[in-house]
C-alpha cells in the first residue's frame, strides 16, 4: 500500500465548460491581476499557509488516525495545524475515509458553509475509488465528483505520517498559490451539483446560495450555471428550498408549548 499523496486531477470538466475560459469570468491566473493585488495575494497565501484549521468532522474510519496525528506523538500543531469545531472558521475539510450518502450530504453542507479559500483532502482509498467498499450501495466512490479535492492520500488506512506529509504538501501548495481547487466549485458548480443530484435526486439543495457567492467573489464562470442549477431555481427560493428535514418524522414528539 502506498502512502504517497496523489495529486488530484483537478480536471476542468470539458463537457460543462463550453468555449473555455473568458466572458466575464475574472481569470484566476497571475497575469491579469494587478501587481499590487498579486503582492497582497502572495502575502496572504504565505500567512495562510502557516495557520490552518482542520474542521473537526470525523466522517469515517480514518478518524481513528487523527488523534495520534494531533496529539503528542506526531503533533500536527508543530506546523500550525489544529482542529476547529465549526465549518465557518475552518480552512481544511479532511474527509477521513468513506462517505456514506447520508454523511456526504452533511459534508457538502459543511463544505459550502466554509469560507474560501478552503481545501479538501481526501483521506484513504475510499475517497479515490471507493476502496474496500467499492460494491457498497451506501457509500460514494469518488470524492472529487461532489466537491473539488486538493489532494488525496492513498492507503487503507494511511498512517499519521502520511497525513502529515499531505498536510505539508498542502502548505507548500498554498504558499505557492497552487491550492485553488475551491474556486473550481464556483466556476463549475453545475458539474458538481449535477453529480450531487444524481445521488440525492433532482430536489437536492443546500441553504447556501453558491451561485450568488460565485458572483459576489468574482468566480462566476460559464460552468457555474447550467441545466442542473436550473432545477434549483424551479424548487423556489432558498427558504422554501429548506423543506428537507432529514429526520424521521417521529423524531421529536410533542410540539413546542404555545
Amino acid at each position, binding site marked *: 500500500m502506498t502512502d504517497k499523496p496523489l495529486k488530484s486531477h483537478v480536471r476542468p470538466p470539458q463537457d460543462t465548460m463550453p468555449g473555455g475560459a473568458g466572458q466575464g469570468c475574472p481569470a484566476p491566473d497571475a497575469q491579469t491581476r494587478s501587481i499590487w493585488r498579486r503582492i497582497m495575494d502572495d502575502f496572504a497565501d504565505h500567512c495562510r499557509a502557516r495557520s490552518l484549521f482542520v474542521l473537526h468532522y470525523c466522517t469515517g474510519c480514518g478518524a481513528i488516525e487523527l488523534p495520534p496525528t494531533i496529539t503528542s506523538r506526531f503533533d500536527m500543531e508543530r506546523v500550525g495545524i489544529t482542529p476547529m469545531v465549526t*465549518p465557518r472558521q475552518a480552512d481544511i475539510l479532511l474527509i477521513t475515509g468513506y462517505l456514506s450518502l447520508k454523511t456526504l450530504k*452533511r459534508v457538502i*453542507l*459543511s463544505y459550502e*458553509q466554509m469560507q474560501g479559500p478552503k481545501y479538501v483532502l481526501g483521506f484513504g482509498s475510499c475517497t479515490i475509488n471507493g476502496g474496500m467498499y467499492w460494491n457498497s450501495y451506501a457509500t460514494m466512490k469518488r470524492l472529487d465528483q461532489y466537491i473539488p479535492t486538493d489532494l488525496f492520500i492513498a492507503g487503507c488506512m494511511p498512517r499519521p505520517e502520511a497525513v502529515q506529509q499531505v498536510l505539508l504538501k498542502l502548505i507548500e501548495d498554498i504558499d505557492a498559490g497552487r491550492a485553488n481547487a475551491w474556486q473550481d466549485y464556483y466556476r463549475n458548480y453545475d458539474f458538481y451539483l449535477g453529480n450531487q443530484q444524481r445521488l440525492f435526486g433532482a430536489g437536492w439543495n443546500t441553504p447556501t446560495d453558491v451561485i450568488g457567492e460565485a458572483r459576489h*467573489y468574482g468566480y462566476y464562470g460559464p460552468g457555474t450555471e447550467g441545466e442542473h442549477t436550473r432545477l434549483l431555481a424551479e424548487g423556489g427560493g*432558498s427558504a422554501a428550498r*429548506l423543506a*428537507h*428535514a432529514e429526520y424521521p418524522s417521529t423524531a421529536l414528539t410533542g410540539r413546542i408549548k404555545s
Partner: protein
Amino acid sequence: MSELDFLFAFAAVLIAGVMCCGRDGRAGWAAMAVYGAMLVAVMAAAGKVAGGSIPSALGFSVLGHKIGWRMDGLGWFFSMLTAGAAFFASWYAAGEWGRAQPGMKTQHLLLALNVAAMLLLVNAGDLLSLFIGWELVSWAAFAMMAQKGGPAQPAAMRYMIYALAGAMAVLAGIMIVHAVTGSFAYKDFAAAFGAMSSGMKWLLAGLFAAGFGVKMALMPFHLWQAAAYSETPGASSAFLNAVSARMGLFALILVLVKVMGLSALAGLHVPLIGLSAKGLLMWIAAFTMVIPTFIALMQTDARMLLTWHGIGQGGYMLLGVLVGTGLGTAGGLLHVFNYATYQMALFLAVTAVIHRTGTSDLDRLGGLITRMPWTYVTLLMGIIGLAGLPPMNGFVSKWMIYRSLLDSGSAFLLIFAFVGTLGTILSVYKLIHNIFLGRLRPQHEGVREAPWSMVAPMLALGGIGFVTGWFPGLALNLTDIAQAAMGAPELPHGLGGVATARGSLNMIWVVSILLVAIGFGAIVFYFLGNRRYEVNQLNNYAGGHFLSPQVPYQFSHEFYPGLARVIGPWYRGSIVRAEQGIGTLLDVSGDLWRGIYHLAWTPLYLLAATVIALGWAIMGGM
C-alpha cells in the same frame, strides 16, 4: 420673578395647556417645546445657583412658619435631570408612538403633573415644603403607574401602600424635628441635630432613611418598584425609571447627608457589630447593588430586567455619595446623571421593540438586529453604559465609585460593587442576545425599524451617554454645582476626567485608543478583505444538519442555568415571604374588622357579650 418662578410657571402653564388641548395631535410637540424651554431655563440658572440659591415667590405661612421654595445646587441638579428626562420622554411620545397610544392626553397630563411635583420637591425650601413635594410626587407617580390599568394597577397599589407608609415615617420625623426645634428650616434642624441624644438621632435617621428609602427602593423595601415601573406605558416608564426613582435618593442626600451630616452618622454606632449608621447604610446600599442585580439576571421580561437593574444602580449612587469624599460624591451624583441617560435610552429602545413586535418577553423575541438596527445600536450603547464599560459614561461614574471605595479602604464594599457589575454584565448580555441576536422568528419577518420620531431621541440619549463618556468633564461640571451645595469636598477635574493622588482617569485617551483600535479592525474587515456576503440565517452551523424554519434552533431560555442553579436557592425570597406574611396579616385583620363592622351578626355579639359577662361574673364572684 426668578428663574425658579419661571420653571414653576412653565409647569403650571403646561398642565393647563395639556388639560384644555391635550387631545390635539400637536400637543406632544408643544409639550416637548415647553420642557425644552424649562431645560434652557434651568441651564441658564446654573451660574446663579453656583454662587448661592434662587428664591421663589411661591410660599405661604402656616403655624407662624414661612413655608417657601428655593433652588440650591442640589435642587438645580435634579431639576435639570427632571426637565431633561421629560424633554426626551415627550419627544419620544410626540410622534408615532403617542398616536398609537390610547389616552395620550392623560399621559401628557400625568407627565406634566409629575414634572411639576418633582420640581416642587427638589426645590423645597424647608422640611414642610419637602413633605408637600414628597406627597405630590408620590401621588403623581401613582397616577402615572395606575393609568394604564391591567396588571399595572395592583403594582401601583402596592407602591402606594409602601409610599404611604414611607410618607408617614417622614411625617413623623418632621413632627419630631418640629417638636424639638420648633422650626421647619433645614438649618435649625442641622443645628439641633448635633445636640440630640444618640437615641433620638437613631430614631430620626431611621425614620427618614426608611421613608425616603422606600421611594428609591432600598433593600428591604425594593419589592414594589420593578412590578410598578415596568408595566407603565413606555415613555412614562422611561421617565419614572430615569428620574422619578431618584427622588428618594435626592431626599436622602438632602436630609441625611446635607442636613444631618455624614460625620454625625458616622458617629452613631451600632452596638456589638462595630458598624456606624453610615456604615450600615453603606452595606444596605451594597446589598441593594448586588441582590436586585442578580434578580434581574433571572427575569424573562426586558422591562422587568431593566427596572430591577434600576434598583441595583441606585445602590451604586447611594454608596458613592455615602463615601463622602470628593471623588465618591461626584461619582454618585455623576452616576445619577449617567444612569438617567442610558436607562432612558434602554427603556425607549425596549419600548420601540414593543411598539413593533407587541412584546418584551425575552423568550419570544430574537434576531431583530436585521430589522431594527438603530434600536439595536441604542440598546448596545445603553447596555455598555449600564454594565459600566468604556467608552460609555457609566464606566466613568462606576470607576469613580470604585476608586473612592478603594481610597477609603472599604475592600469588601468594593468587592460587592464588582460582583454587582459582574451580574449586570451577565444580564445585559442576555437582554441584547434574546432581543436582537440569535434567530429571527418567522412572525417578525415583516418588522420594520421604529420611526425617526422614536429613534432620534433614543440615539440622542445614547449620544449624550457617549459624549459624556468621552468627555466626562462636561457632566462633572454639572455635578460640581450640586456637590458644592451639599457641602461635600470639591473634586478637581478636567475635561477628560479626574486626577487623584492615587490614580487618574483620562477618558479622552481611553476612548480614543478604543476608537482607534476599533477603527483599525473596521478598516481590516471592511476595506482590506472581501466585501461581506450575507447568508441565509438557516445556513448555519448545526452540527452538519439541515435546518428548516420549523426547527426551534438558536433560541435561548434560562440564560446562565449553571449560575442560576448555584445562586437560585438564595432567591427563594425570604423578603418576598415576609412581605406576603405582612400582607396576609393585614388582609386577615382587615377582613376581621370589616366583618365586625359590616355584619350585623347578632348571635355572635350576643355570644361575645354573654361570654364577657359570664367571665366578669365568675371573676367578680371569686
